[in-house]
């Protein structure tokens, strides 16, 4: 049973549920405690030791239902009807069928032995010697069920068939399926492990026997075999879904967070948005509390005296001065003009997430005129807010000089020594005066000014880019073209804020 559990844990991990080793040990103890008999109790209990956040609980519910789905195995109705008919016919044939059945068994066994080379011949695509070994082992241990496949199908014993299918799946390692294209291979392997050869032999013999009953039985068996093949295929597909459902997405997320934002396809926007949110949430989790920094060595006289009144004024318990690390005040200015149209959506998306993470963010957007979007972000959902910000402020030709003038009028007074000013933009000002003097004023007042430029460093100062004139007035000017860059920069802002 522990094999089942460890497979389940692997399936959970594939669904983004983080399960540590000690948790899977707990799961083992839980399973021992509550047993597998009561599904609901098992589900409740396992979910409490394995899934530890909201999202994980959802993923767990799905995964549990999928993994322990036993009712999927219903042979198609017509087949079982014919099966019944066949059963009724069988007594007419009397003992003959039985004898034939026994003969089949023997031959099935032989053909299995001789069939092995061809099997390994058909397998080279998938997995080197390891999988061949496994297959060999599987065939050895699968010998007993091998004899039963014909009978199993004819009896229509669902429960038994289903159990054997699961067993065969484990033996051939169906849980290791990784690629969509491996479905056929694994389907065949499972069927072989369950005794496909024996079944084929039986069908051939019946066919050759010439009697009408034999032909009918062969026909029926062929149909059953086809139905069964579909079921095995279903089973394999479920395994694929279970263990690799998220692998593709994870890969895509990884790629998306690394590549340049301008290269992201429109169809990936949704995913990107989720990623940005995830990032914001992670940053929030890391920085959600005010931190304190003890300055050991500087005595806090007032607190020390107060603390020690109860000891008769004897200085027992000494308190040191502390500084509170506040969450930073951020003012973000975002260029949404035509030249950064590709980036604008993401910059706004990021700005929006930033307002969710940090309590004191004022956000501004501009192309030639600058306007505050803080309230807009607070009121509307991300999609609507970004669309509106773009339609109101975006699209025009950039004029940094004008935008800085506006900024000076609106917000310069609110900038103090605790404020971090973030400027997101490419500094392409259409050859207008970028008003570096205003930026200098901002720089004087603010704690620091950071410039995040989506363009690569080689493009700075080419054409109408004014980085050369603007960057001296920034504490730092960095390239920020992918999500990973963004995350690094923001976490730095948060960490070093005092």
């Amino acid at each position, binding site marked *: 049973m522990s094999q089942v559990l460890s497979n389940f844990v692997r399936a959970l991990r594939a669904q983004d549920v983080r399960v540590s080793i000690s948790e899977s040990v707990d799961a083992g103890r839980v399973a021992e405690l509550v*047993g597998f008999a009561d599904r609901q109790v098992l589900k409740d*209990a396992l979910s409490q030791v394995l899934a530890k956040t909201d999202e994980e609980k959802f993923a767990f519910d799905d995964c549990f239902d999928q993994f322990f789905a036993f009712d999927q195995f219903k042979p198609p109705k017509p087949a079982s009807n014919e099966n019944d008919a066949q059963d009724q016919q069988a007594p007419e044939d009397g003992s003959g069928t039985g004898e034939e059945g026994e003969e089949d068994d023997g031959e099935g066994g032989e053909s299995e032995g001789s069939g092995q080379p061809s099997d390994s011949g058909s397998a080279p695509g998938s997995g080197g010697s390891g999988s061949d070994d496994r297959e060999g082992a599987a065939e050895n241990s699968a010998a007993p069920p091998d004899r039963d496949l014909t009978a199993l199908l004819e009896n229509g014993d669902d429960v038994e068939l289903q159990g054997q299918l699961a067993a065969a799946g484990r033996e051939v390692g169906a849980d290791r399926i990784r690629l969509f294209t491996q479905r056929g291979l694994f389907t065949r392997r499972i069927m072989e492990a369950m005794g496909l050869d024996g079944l084929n032999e039986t069908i051939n013999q019946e066919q050759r026997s010439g009697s009408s009953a034999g032909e009918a039985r062969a026909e029926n068996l062929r149909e059953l075999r086809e139905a069964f093949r579909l079921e095995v295929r279903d089973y394999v597909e479920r395994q694929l879904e279970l263990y690799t459902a998220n692998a593709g997405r994870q890969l895509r997320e990884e790629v998306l967070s690394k590549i340049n934002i301008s290269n992201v396809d429109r169809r990936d926007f949704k995913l990107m948005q989720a990623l940005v949110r995830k990032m914001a949430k992670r940053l929030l989790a890391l920085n959600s509390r005010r931190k304190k920094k003890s300055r050991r060595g500087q005595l806090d006289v007032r607190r020390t005296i107060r603390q020690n009144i*109860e000891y008769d004024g004897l200085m027992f318990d000494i308190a040191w001065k502390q500084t509170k690390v506040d969450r930073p005040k951020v003012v973000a200015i975002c260029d949404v003009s035509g030249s950064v149209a590709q980036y604008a959506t993401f910059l706004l998306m990021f700005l929006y997430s930033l307002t969710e993470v940090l309590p004191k963010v004022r956000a501004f957007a501009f192309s030639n005129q600058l306007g505050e979007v803080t309230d807009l972000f607070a009121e509307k959902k991300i999609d609507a807010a970004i669309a509106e910000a773009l339609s109101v402020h975006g699209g025009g030709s950039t004029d940094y000089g004008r935008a800085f003038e506006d900024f000076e009028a609106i917000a310069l007074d609110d900038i103090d020594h605790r404020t971090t000013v973030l400027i997101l933009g490419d500094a392409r000002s259409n050859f207008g005066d970028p008003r570096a003097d205003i930026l200098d004023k901002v720089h004087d007042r603010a704690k620091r000014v950071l410039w995040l430029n989506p363009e690569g460093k080689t493009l700075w100062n080419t054409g109408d880019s004014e980085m050369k004139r603007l960057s001296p007035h920034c504490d730092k000017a960095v390239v920020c073209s992918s999500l990973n860059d963004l995350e690094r920069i923001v976490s730095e802002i948060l960490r070093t804020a005092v």
Partner: protein
Amino acid sequence: MTAPRVEITDIQDGFAKEGYICNAHIATAIFLARNLDKPILVEGPPGVGKTELAKATSEYLNLELIRLQCYEGLDEAKALYEWKYGKQLLYTQVLKEKLGDLMEGAQGLAASMERLHEFDDTFFSEEFLEPRALLKSLWSENGSVLLIDEIDKSDDEFEAFLLELLSEYQITVPELGTIKAKSSPIVFLTSNNTREIGDALKRRCIHLYIPFPDADLETRIITSRVPEVEEGLRKQLISFVQNLRELELKKVPAVSETIDWARTLVLLHAKELDSDMVRNTLNVLLKFQDDIDNIDGDINALTTKARAAAE
């Protein structure tokens, strides 16, 4: 061994007797905690009965409830133990006066030191230890229910400090060595999710998420907590609250608010909901003026819906 299902139902019934109505999911957590000897981390929105769960457990199992309220700046001196400095000082004074008598007959420094050393250990013994919540629960003879409330409000350092207690049921006091629990307590940690709890802590706990109850469970809770409220009104108010939770609100009403509202309505001798009554008592359910203003227009529709649902 009885089947787990039976035991879980027993726990549910036992809780019901204490006035705490819960579903099988919650009872399963209690069952696991007792059998696996693991703490339970209870998360969920405010007011769904996280703290009540610990109280009910202590009553159901007849164990002492020891409560530790977490807050920013809570440290081990307040949570675990403190030396009784005053008493230590007093004893030092006494010792000073008696010093002459003690030293009588001691030859040389070495002998005097030896005599003094005899007192050293007394000063840092359990005699002078002021146990706080955590130590109390470890010392309790028959086991106890330890409730560490709102762990998310405490600092990271305190969370880390709890790890030893939660996994081994022991704590280390430098002067005394390791103190082991006489019998392992049942530990509840509650969190409102104001910040993410560390993975290390989560890993050591059974994780129980209590969501808002569904209509059925909420009905049972109200029946048990506010038996005075008549059936018709009960159905109406529960349907009203359930619908209210679907709306976009700053703070969604929780079970505790439903109970308060039910009590309010009983106090006002209400027989059934009408829009005016709802409007007047809405501040019991909703705690933000913004929310109250926002749903003002929907009250009629909500009330009608609630009355229709009750029939």
